């Protein structure tokens, strides 16, 4: 087990290094003048300065391997340049926008994982029964519905027509409270801070604003997990050991929960990394539609305004996080399935 984890850990820097090379190569598609913005961390530097001097200073006309070495050095020291669209350095912008996205991601993880696994296995147990058909329809429509359509339709129905769930992160009243000095911002995650401040009005308002984006994120991400879980459960239920368990006279509930579902979980765990990637994709759209000032909306605005440092920083951040998620998945996988360890 330990040697397996160590082996996986050793691959991690290689893949991360590969990601950095890839981002660097993408950057080479641009002229040195355009690339300059990725290096300059302070916009004042760009005023009244000859650009050729700056290009010289940052070595942007050096041979490519030297440029890469320089850039790599900057990246591992967290120097990612100045983000025009956030009006602060890229690393600072991360700190600022992270809690908003984390809040959305954490709230949606719960329904995605629990709903996906529970509904998926239930659908397999009730194979070809009405519930199975409904689940399949949910999965296939979720898979076919683009996030931005789901979000806009949700907004159209629940805000435009019914007026229940407005966009934005907080209403006017709650946001005034959050900004006031009496409200301590411990984490930046509003629901968590509200609980820590024992302010249930803010908590309720935040949840009201979260419901629609979280549901949008979950609905489009459900499909994959549902499908994998259902297919794997269907296969497991046909295994001999499940028949044996039934023949022993075990209760159906026990057979499904203890014997079948645990084994069917293995393929579902493997796609967790993909689900994280889905979530990142979803955040860009959801935050844009629901006006959440988080990482995704920042990246979308960066793309619209050609804010390169922000884009490349965000891409790198996504890459590293997904590689990490895959590592955790691999370790969990080895923990759940002894066969993997023995390889």
């Amino acid at each position, binding site marked *: 087990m330990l040697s397996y984890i160590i082996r996986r850990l050793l691959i991690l820097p290689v893949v991360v290094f590969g990601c950095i090379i890839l981002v660097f190569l993408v*950057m080479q598609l641009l002229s040195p003048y355009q690339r300059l913005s990725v290096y300059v961390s302070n916009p004042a530097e760009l005023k009244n300065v000859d650009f050729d001097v700056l290009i010289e200073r940052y070595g942007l006309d050096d041979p490519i391997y030297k440029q890469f070495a320089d850039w790599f050095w900057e990246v591992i020291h967290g120097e990612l340049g100045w983000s025009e669209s956030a009006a602060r350095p890229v690393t600072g912008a991360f700190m600022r926008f992270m809690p908003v996205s984390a809040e959305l991601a954490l709230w949606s993880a719960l329904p995605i994982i629990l709903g996906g696994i529970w509904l998926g296995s239930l659908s397999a147990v009730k194979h070809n029964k009405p519930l199975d058909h409904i689940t399949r329809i949910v999965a296939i429509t979720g898979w076919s519905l683009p996030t931005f*359509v789901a979000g*806009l339709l949700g907004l159209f129905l629940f805000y435009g027509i019914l007026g229940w769930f407005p966009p934005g992160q907080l209403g006017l009243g709650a946001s005034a409270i959050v900004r006031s000095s009496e409200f301590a911002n411990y984490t930046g995650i509003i629901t968590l801070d509200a609980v820590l401040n024992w302010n249930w009005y803010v908590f309720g308002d935040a949840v009201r604003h979260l419901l629609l984006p979280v549901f949008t994120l979950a609905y489009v991400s459900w499909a994959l997990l549902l499908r994998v879980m259902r297919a794997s459960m269907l296969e497991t239920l046909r295994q001999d050991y499940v028949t044996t368990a039934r023949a022993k006279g075990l209760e159906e509930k026990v057979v499904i929960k203890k014997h079948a579902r645990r084994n069917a979980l293995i393929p579902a765990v493997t796609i967790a990394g993909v689900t994280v*990637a889905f979530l990142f*994709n979803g955040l*860009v759209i959801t935050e844009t539609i629901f006006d959440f000032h988080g990482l995704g909306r920042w990246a979308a605005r960066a*793309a*619209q305004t050609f804010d390169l440092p922000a*884009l490349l920083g965000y891409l790198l951040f996504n890459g590293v996080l*997904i590689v990490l998620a895959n590592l955790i998945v691999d370790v969990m996988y080895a923990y759940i399935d002894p066969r993997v360890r023995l390889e």
Partner: protein
Amino acid sequence: MTTFLKLIKNPLGLIGLVLLVFFVVVGILAPVLAPPAWEHEPYRIPRDGYSSVPKPPSPEHPFGTAEGQYDIYYGIVWGTRTAWRVSLVVVSISALIGIVMGSVAAFYGGVLDELLMRVTDIFYAFPFLVGAMVLTTILGRGLTNVMVALVALGWMGYARLIRGDILQIREADYVQAARAAGANSLRLIWRHILPNAIWPVVVQGTMSMGSIVITAAALSFLGVGAPLGYADWGQLISYARNWILGLYGNPLAYWYVVIYPSIAITLFCLSWNLVGDALRDILDPRLRGTR
């Protein structure tokens, strides 16, 4: 042929197929259904004035006009062609790249295999939409660049799939027999292994037709994809963003700007997914005999 027969016997598969035929017809008949205003630029949506307030459906504009007076009906009809073009080009090129990479990795093995698989790992580390967004921004706005970005980030799935299948099939008796009979590598891959390993790739390709259209539309929605005024479903939906809230006392005032483009894109993806789902059930031997 039997596959096709089974496909039309599957009710959901049949629905998908009928919808696809419908979209093909709309795509082919686009010049008849919506005669272009400019002969040489059929993808430019004609505008009826410049007012930002959408106008409801009328005999002149059957689906109404969106923000900026873009004709929604025209955009949807010609957007069908855009959707077909993007999805067919991207899926076929990325499948081709994936097949070549995957079969080379599987067949030669060793260092080359390890290297190619690490490269796919690295490409996999980037979320599809985010990666495509960054790449399109850097390459510049436009449909060709969108397609380049989608291919660059979309080939890995096919490579992994075909590699796994080949590794499995390579050990099969009939391949060993062909090898013993003196067939060379190229002939082995081309004549004996690929025809058997290709089906999962076909299913994967069908399933991703929809998601490619979704991602391309998402890029237009975010304002980095198709150029302004280009007949593209994502673009039409982005025009709807400011008109979610209806008028006071009439919340449904601007329903047409949201509903029509949403229906078009969702139905297109749904039909591919229905066909893909049915195909997978038919082609996957493990699921045989369950229905």
